[in-house]
């Protein structure tokens, strides 16, 4: 059923509930779309179904324990929050970490970016009906998690970062296998990128929707690939280098149009950059100390910044001289990126909303699932499956209009 077939007058406003649960992603958040016909006129987010109180929990743990707690903020960004906290504490202490530790942080950070971006590419493919992309991307993601496990002992949560360095070493005996995995991944991603960028149906489907202008990006504080796709040249790894990024050769990817297609391009090209960064790190990693040892934490405050897969992560740390933080403020990138839906989704049709919401890679199990449209009689008219089908139907219709079968085996 499409939204236009249900009986109602033009100008009739309805509210569509999206969320709050979806098994693909890790945390719940709900959206209320107000629609007029097929056009979205207002978006409202319903947040924090499982507020975990991590900021307060961190204030009840020692500096050694906090990074391990912060890994549990997110199922994907486990390195992000623990290293960002360490950056904040090291800003408070005004210390430099040993070179080997900074290379290890770079390697695990980039492995995390790799598997996070590949996860997004797969999900985005699914929402618009390219399930082949979904299968490919998630198949390529597996070896990245395997390398993460070989080097750190766990597929996601490494528990490596501590204030002043890293807790353990990563075994060099696994470096050859890690290099081979990167070589294979590079070829696969090159093929995937070319297939996605050259597909005329995908370009017709994704160009010009969910556009954020550079001014909106700055006003709403949008960060990461979502900002870079709008031509805003910001990347903490280059702007305020932490870990080993200053010593490596890599570039910040930006594009100009700010639509969903460009956000996909930025992420796909960033995957190639991450592979290159990991290869360089595996070559250049120096020996030496892993951490600075026990540190006395003085009174004061520090701010840490970190480029997470989704954008800039900020931690504010305030110390009262004891062994536990007095206050820790965590701002994850999705907090600002998700707020920008209020501009990126307005004026889009319902069929484009799932992919527009997904385009900033929101770190909640938010964007899609039990969508229920209630008709005038109160009976549901749309389910989540209907919404995904709407999105996929639009891709199929576009392909037919263009007189071709979609190049990537639609559904």
């Amino acid at each position, binding site marked *: 059923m499409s939204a236009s077939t249900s009986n109602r007058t033009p100008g009739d406003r309805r509210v569509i509930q999206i969320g709050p649960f979806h098994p693909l992603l890790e945390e719940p958040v709900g959206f209320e779309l107000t629609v007029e016909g097929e056009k979205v006129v207002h978006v409202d987010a319903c*947040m*924090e179904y499982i507020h975990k109180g991590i900021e*307060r929990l961190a204030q009840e743990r020692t500096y050694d324990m906090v990074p391990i707690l912060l890994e549990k903020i997110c199922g994907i960004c486990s390195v992000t929050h623990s290293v960002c906290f360490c950056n904040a504490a090291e800003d408070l202490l005004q210390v430099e970490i040993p070179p080997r530790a900074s290379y290890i942080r770079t390697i695990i950070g980039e492995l995390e970016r790799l598997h996070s971006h590949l996860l997004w590419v797969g999900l985005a493919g699914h929402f618009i009906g390219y399930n082949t992309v979904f299968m490919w991307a998630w198949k390529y993601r597996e070896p990245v998690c395997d390398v993460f496990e070989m080097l750190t002992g766990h597929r996601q949560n490494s528990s490596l970062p501590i204030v002043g360095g890293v807790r353990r070493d990563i075994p060099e005996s696994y470096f050859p296998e890690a290099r081979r995995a990167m070589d294979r991944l590079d070829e696969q991603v090159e093929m995937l990128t070319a297939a996605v960028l050259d597909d005329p149906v995908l370009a017709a489907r994704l160009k010009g929707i969910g556009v954020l202008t550079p001014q909106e990006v*700055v006003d709403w*504080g949008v960060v990461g690939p979502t900002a870079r796709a709008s031509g805003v040249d910001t990347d903490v790894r280059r702007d305020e*280098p932490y870990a080993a990024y200053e010593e490596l050769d890599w570039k910040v990817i930006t594009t100009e149009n700010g639509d969903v297609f460009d956000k996909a391009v930025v992420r796909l090209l960033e995957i190639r950059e991450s592979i290159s960064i990991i290869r360089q790190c595996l070559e250049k990693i120096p020996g030496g100390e892993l951490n600075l040892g026990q540190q006395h934490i003085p009174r004061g405050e520090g701010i840490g910044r970190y480029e997470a897969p989704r954008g800039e992560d*900020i931690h504010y740390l305030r110390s009262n001289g004891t062994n536990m933080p007095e206050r820790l403020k965590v*701002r994850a990138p999705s907090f600002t990126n998700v*707020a920008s839906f209020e501009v990126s989704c307005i004026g889009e049709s319902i069929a484009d909303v799932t992919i527009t919401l997904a385009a900033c890679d929101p770190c909640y199990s938010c964007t899609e699932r039990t969508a229920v449209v209630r008709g005038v009689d109160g009976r549901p008219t749309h389910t989540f499956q209907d919404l995904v089908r709407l999105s996929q139907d639009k891709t199929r219709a576009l392909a037919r209009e263009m007189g071709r079968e979609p190049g990537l085996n639609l559904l």
Partner: protein
Amino acid sequence: MESTDLGKRLESAFVDRVEWTARSQKRLYVSIAPAQLYPVFDWLRENIPGFRLGTSTGIDLREGVGVFHHFVVNGMPLVVTLKVIASKPDPRVPSLAAKIPSARWIEREMAEMLGIEFEGHPDPRRLLKAEAFSDIYPQRRGFDTRAFKESIGERLDF
């Protein structure tokens, strides 16, 4: 731009109205009175390209409830923190969300977690907590976690 340079420029533009410390060349902390928030913010936004709100921290201090706005600059290793202290027991500060939309959610969060009133906020609705907990401020000092857990059953009807 280094933090000490910016601190000096701010001081000459707002004589006796700002108090700044630079903990390093990358971090500037500026203490201001609540009434100075808008003028200082406007000055910074006009004079620094790429100036945007990173986030804000609400913190319960001895002298009042602190609202620290952390601004970052695209393309630069600089974080400028504007510190505003609102007096207890009825803390209120001007809302930055009236100026920039990126402050909307974080001010709604602080309002709920610490009971701060943001004057002029365009959308001061609940963001995080259930209605049943609207009079509880978990990030205030003296918040009793155990008593809170025990009272959940009385407040929420599952």
